[in-house]
């Protein structure tokens, strides 16, 4: 390595780029991540357009038909009530994707802020904030949900709230641990001695450096949130038939797995596809957001 004392004087105006612009450039070279992104976009678009493009009604039963295997009329077969599976998976995707993204988004925002503040200030503030997290951890999830139901009645927003309220706890812990190790790094001290405000330091110097683990955890959270929704719906606390979600379809499919395997396989494929796409995209994002991985 040569450290030249003199620098060339000609100013070269290269376009300045932010972390996110750089990340996009790097992501666009990662084909697997792009494929994941494309699959997710496709799934979201289909979900949004479902009311107009769905071939059948999601609730109209045809008991004479019963459960039929995939055919030209019903590409993915029908369930025991004779309802078209493709339609039900499309409608189910609307619920599942919404729950997945919104509840995870809620968890992400609360978790990052909570964890960053607790980790950055430390001491009593940290102790208090983390004890609150511990108490919420200790609260049995089912009792918490039932309580919410009793107070507010059943609706889909409550479902987001309930799931988000559980999922942010782990996120907060992860972020807190990261922040605590970052807090004493010299670059944070340098920012402090520049006179930056605490909030600016958290926003510019701390949070961007926690992104790696956060993104990985997020991509793991989305599918687990979708399954949590299925569990709640199965217990009658989430959405109710004839509405559907992937999780609900899967849990019904499991019951009739031996006679009508397609009732389990197709919603399963839909969920797995989302999960794969998320993982590829998440890995790609993590690499793209880390400037230490090369641009080429």
């Amino acid at each position, binding site marked *: *390595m040569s*450290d*030249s*004392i*003199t*620098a*060339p*004087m*000609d*100013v*070269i*105006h*290269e*376009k*300045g*780029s932010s*972390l996110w612009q750089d990340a996009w450039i790097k992501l666009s070279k990662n084909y697997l991540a792009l494929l994941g992104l494309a699959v997710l976009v496709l799934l979201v678009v289909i979900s949004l357009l479902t009311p107009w493009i769905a071939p059948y009604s999601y609730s109209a039963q045809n008991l004479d038909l019963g459960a039929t295997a995939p055919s030209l009329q019903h590409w993915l077969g029908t369930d025991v009530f004779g309802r078209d599976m493709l339609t039900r998976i499309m409608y189910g995707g609307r619920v599942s994707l919404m729950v997945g993204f919104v509840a995870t988004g809620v968890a992400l925002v609360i978790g990052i802020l909570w964890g960053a503040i607790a980790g950055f200030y430390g001491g009593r503030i940290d102790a208090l904030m983390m004890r609150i997290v511990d108490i919420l951890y200790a609260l049995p999830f089912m009792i918490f949900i039932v309580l919410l139901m009793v107070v507010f009645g059943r609706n889909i927003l409550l479902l987001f709230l309930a799931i988000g309220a559980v999922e942010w706890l782990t996120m907060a812990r992860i972020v807190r641990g990261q922040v605590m190790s970052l807090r004493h*790094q*010299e*670059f944070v*001290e*340098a*920012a*402090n*001695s*520049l*006179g*930056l405000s*605490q909030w*600016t330091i958290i926003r*510019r*110097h701390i949070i*961007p*450096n926690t992104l790696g683990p956060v993104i990985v955890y997020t991509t793991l959270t989305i599918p687990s949130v979708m399954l949590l929704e299925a569990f709640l719906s199965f217990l009658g606390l989430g959405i109710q038939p004839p509405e559907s979600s992937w999780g609900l379809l899967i849990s019904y499919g499991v019951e009739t797995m031996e006679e009508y395997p397609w009732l389990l396989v197709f919603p399963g494929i839909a969920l797995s596809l989302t999960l794969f796409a998320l993982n590829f995209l998440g890995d790609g994002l993590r690499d793209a*957001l*880390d*400037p*230490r991985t*090369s641009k080429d």
Partner: protein
Amino acid sequence: MAILEVKELKVYFHTRNGVVKAVDNVSFSVDSGKTLAIVGESGSGKSVTCYSLLDLLPKPPAKIEGGTAMFNGSDLLSCSPEQMRHHRCNDIAVIFQDPMTSLNPYLTVGDQLIEPLIYHPNKDKRERRVEARLKAIALLDEVGIVDPVARFDSYPHEFSGGMRQRVIIAMALITEPKLLICDEPTTALDVTIQAQILQLIKKLQEKRNVAVIFISHDLGVVAGIADTVLVMCNGTIRETGSTDDIFYHTQNDYTKKLLAAIPEGAKRLQNRSDETQKIIQVDNLKTYFKNQSDSSNNPAKEFVKAVDNVSLSINHGEILGLVGESGSGKSTLGRSILQLVPNTAGTVRFKGETLTGLSQKQLVPWRRKMQMIFQDPYASLNPRMTVFQTLSEPLLHHGIADRGTVNAQVAQLMNEVGLAQIQMHKYPHEFSGGQRQRIAIGRAIATKPEFIIADEPVSALDVTIQAQILDLILSLVERHNLTMLFISHDLSVVRYISDRVAVMNKGLIVEAGETETLWKSPQHAYTRQLLKAIPLADPKSERLRMAGVWA
């Protein structure tokens, strides 16, 4: 007779960005009872050379492309894993650089010490625990551990850095090796401890007649103990010869450059100190931390007194050197002056204005006038911010530049600290250590401060880079008429840069005075001890000194 003979060793790293020739055509030999020093800067291949002998390199990416290493008649590079294990257990031992991480914190030092004896690969050679324990205790005594019977059952965290390095030396010697590889064994240690460890290694070597390969980046350290010296750069040998030849009849330009880069002698710039104007005045400053590890209710141990009743003042235009060993409180004093850690008692005044007791908000205007350069250029830059973002942050935050002028101002800053402007949008990891320290210096001078604290700004750098950064700091101090507190453990560096020196030990300033006066007639016993321990790049005086201490 040569116990180890390495011929035409080639180790290449096959990385994604191509082949790196880490070691290229290196040959040397070591005799029993002799010391070979391999000297070079970081990335020169000196550690890779030695690690390849013991098969300690990660493969891939490393690959030994050629050469032989004959040790007692067998080739280390081509032997089976079984044979290699035999060599590691019986013949060759390594002492690593960092005594803090090379011991397992969950095992007592005794257990780690006797491991090679009671788990010996050759079942007949395995010793019983009781015998191994006695052997280990005798060895601990020999390396200078006080009360070795009790210390046998202590855990690594109960030892200081120097004591741990002694334990590690005992660990290396317990199998009675014939070859000892020391990889920068004193780099992480204080200068007084370093002198003791060097003497210990020399003494043990003579007694046991082992061959030693001593890896170091510091020519001063090897002057006293090496018989032959090998200078490496970029994977190749630049010069090899007897220690006296290397130091007194230097042939190679790179070796000359290395020797010239060792800071030596007094400051050459004139003293710009203006005694009528005090920039910083510290009175009876105390900074205590709550003692986390102490659970006893001993009130005397409740606090760690990092800075204990320190008073000092810095004149306008002066460079005050602050020297001390690790744990002396010198860094904490620097941070206390800048109000980066809360002060327990006392006052800090900047140009007559009291800073102690101000809130973070009230301090903001002062922050612009006082800046800090940190030790570790790898930790002091945010890895997710480009040079432009790092340098523009202080400019924009303090309103020195606006969106329109910030580009030009950052470019000017980069020019001032010697960075090419095409690198403006690169991230810190794309720079070398010296270049990163230039970025950090650029950040510190961005706000046009009047006072800068430099906390060991060159101690993480190679010696040739160190000299460049010191010259950069001196030129900036002169150009911008800065006042500086220069913190360092390296006395030669402090002498080279400071007008006045303060010596710190255990939270107290034990002595302060004009640099040259203090060097010539140190008053305090601790200062004398420190000055005596500085390694010089002069083999003759180093040998005399070592011999003198033993006699």
